[in-house]
């Protein structure tokens, strides 16, 4: 046990900060400080800068363009980006589909897709959830039927995040309706331009367009776009979801939001004094900070274990801890931000849109904070709801 960052790790942290200072457009940073998600253009521009620097795919092996970092470096890099704040490498490409292709794909698939994923030449989206298959993902009904050198896909996916930007989608589809439900599923890579695919927006309660329905109507997919073995897609899905949970702690992002919250609470008056001087409000913020510190250390423990666990295939209870606490903290901070703004948080309008506060009926910093609170309720639902995480813990680790 040696509970400190090395000199080399500290130097690396500085190197990341220097890169951010030199390369990230200030407009992107300010956009994100205001609490908005980066636009497609911002994400693409930044991903390409990261790729040029060799930092686009922190988790990938060196042979596929990864930087060859230690777990501590990966952690530092992720946290520094979130704290700046800067866009993270696009999750669908780098943390979801890329690792699946690296782990289960053919040499052809790796050569064809990985470089384009890294450089964000293709924007990927995730075709997993269906109207009848949410928490029970293995209950999915989308079908793929083999016809000659093609598969033909029919069905409907939902909650497809940013499908409106996507060039490709990775899809779970049922290839053997006779098998037990986890055993008849396969993993496909599908070009969004293929005839028969249609994307319909889902507007969420705060008014934003982030998620979509994606419909497949006799969509022909070349046989070489199957990843891994036929009917073994559930292995890919489990592998991918394990990685997804890992990214949900978002410690740096929460720290950045708390920093923002404290800045706002210094400038906002409550009872005629700065809100931050109210002991009750300060106590609530402080509680978040304590929870976050514990989570930060948990993340580091998980990262340190990662190398040792590699290949054992054993699930780690900590991944569920990261999901549960990471989302609770993010939701809690979003609620405190809304509370800090008081009634001025209530002006309606898509919090993601530019210039929605054109009427200047609220201070700029307060605009959209209720909307972000509403939107973030999704965090305890997606990626395996927090109830499902508790089921996993009870069953897999407690033996209950």
């Amino acid at each position, binding site marked *: 046990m040696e509970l400190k960052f090395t000199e080399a790790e500290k130097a690396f942290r500085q190197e990341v900060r220097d890169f951010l200072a030199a390369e990230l457009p200030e407009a992107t940073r300010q956009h994100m400080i205001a609490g908005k998600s980066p636009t497609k253009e911002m994400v693409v521009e930044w991903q390409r800068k990261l790729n040029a620097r060799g930092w686009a795919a922190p988790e990938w092996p060196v042979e596929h363009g990864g930087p060859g970092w230690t777990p501590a470096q990966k952690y530092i890099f992720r946290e520094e980006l979130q704290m700046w704040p800067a866009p993270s490498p696009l999750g669908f490409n780098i943390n979801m589909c890329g690792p699946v292709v690296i782990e289960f794909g053919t040499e052809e698939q790796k050569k064809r897709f990985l470089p384009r994923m890294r450089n964000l030449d293709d924007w990927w989206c995730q075709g997993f959830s269906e109207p009848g298959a949410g928490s029970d993902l293995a209950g999915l009904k989308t079908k793929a039927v083999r016809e000659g050198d093609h598969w033909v896909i029919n069905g409907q996916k939902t909650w497809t995040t940013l499908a409106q930007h996507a060039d490709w989608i990775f899809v779970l589809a049922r290839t053997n309706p006779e098998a037990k439900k986890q055993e008849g599923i396969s993993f496909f890579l599908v070009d969004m331009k293929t005839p028969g695919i249609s994307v319909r927006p889902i507007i969420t309660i705060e008014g934003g367009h982030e998620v979509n329905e994606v419909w497949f109507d006799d969509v022909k997919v070349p046989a070489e776009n199957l990843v891994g073995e036929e009917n073994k897609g559930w292995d890919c899905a489990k592998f991918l979801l394990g990685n997804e949970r890992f990214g949900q702690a978002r410690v740096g992002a929460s720290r950045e939001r708390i920093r923002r919250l404290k800045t706002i609470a210094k400038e906002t008056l409550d009872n005629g004094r700065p809100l931050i001087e109210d002991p009750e409000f300060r106590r609530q913020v402080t509680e978040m900070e304590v929870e976050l510190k514990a989570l930060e250390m948990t993340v580091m423990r998980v990262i340190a274990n990662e190398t040792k666990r590699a290949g054992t295939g054993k699930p780690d209870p900590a991944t569920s801890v990261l999901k549960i606490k990471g989302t609770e903290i993010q939701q809690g901070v979003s609620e405190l931000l809304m*509370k800090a703004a008081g009634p001025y948080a209530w002006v309606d309008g898509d919090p993601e849109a530019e210039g929605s506060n054109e009427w200047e*009926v609220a201070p700029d910093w307060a605009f959209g904070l*209720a909307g972000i609170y*509403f939107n973030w309720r*999704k965090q305890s639902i997606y990626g395996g709801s927090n109830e499902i995480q508790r089921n996993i813990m009870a069953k897999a680790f407690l033996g209950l």
Partner: protein
Amino acid sequence: MDFDLNEEQSLLQDSIRRTLTDRYGFEARRGFMASETGWSRELWAQYAELGLLGLPFSEEDGGFGGGAEEMLILAEQMGRFITLEPWFSTLVLGGGFLRHGADAGLRGELVPGIAGGETLLAFAQQERQSRYDLHDVQTTAKRDGSGWVITGRKGMVLHGDTADHFIVTARTGGGQRDRQGVGVFLVPKGEASSIRGFRQVDGSRAAEVAFENARASHCLSEDGMDLVDRVVDEAIAALAAEAVGAMDVVHGMTVDYMKTRTQFGRPIGSFQALQHKAADMLVAIEQSRSMAYFAAMASRGEDAAERRRDMHAVKVQVGRASRLVGQLSIQLHGGIAMTMEYAAGHYFKRLTVNEATFGDTDHHLRALSDAGGLVQAA
């Protein structure tokens, strides 16, 4: 004490509920929200026909002489359908100021128009720096001949874009945060120098209203914080009843969904972890219903200090329940309730705004605790 409705009260509840059931479905509500006014003038006329708009006023003034109990019935039903019409601004706030702050002449002038559905009122009190402190007022009132002129900017004025008259808090004396010297004025809309309307996240309309030497038509009080508190305490009772109505409906919606949504081959309502959450929601709603009755009773109390403490307690209890029920309604549904197409999210948004209207839970908990709580030491 009798918690049962009498015959007239039952009739009132049934007639509101029937009308709203017929006219205020989810799609209809969306249509009203998307319209230019953001709510339905036609429904408003129907409320007038039902006698709802005269409810808070005495018969001598041209109203129907309803009391706290009748307002509770009205507010709960409005909450059940999360209606967008300005009942809260015009009847509860505006009506409160008229009943407690206007002379018979002014009441006679305005009440028939309100009861008939022609006249709308809005309470303009919020300022950028004031947060939940109604006495924190920068807007000024200056004597001008026999009357008063008002200068200042008021934000988040609920239904300020359709109001015919504003009830405005403005400083007649004292410093920005003094309780003394806050006047209450009636200002016709034509006197405002600008009215910028917008929609709030819960679907209701509001406005930023600027006054530049606006001539008040009436001064309700030159030193009116007691009046403001009295009206806001009644408003808190109405908000509590509205929240109970909204919570009850969204809870029912959630339980229905739990019975029909299947995952892992069974209804999700069969999972004990979810059952317990739904039961916790019911506990919170029952406690809130009790507190809404208490609010109706206590809001008319003559001892201002006691009444204030009681209403802080109401906001704390109902506010916490609103948050719990709102958040769990979304969580127990899952993704579907995150969509604009589904009603639960709209109830959640309304409950969120309701919770912080005239002070959030933290604000009232602090105020109650500073005031010594509800139980005196022996």
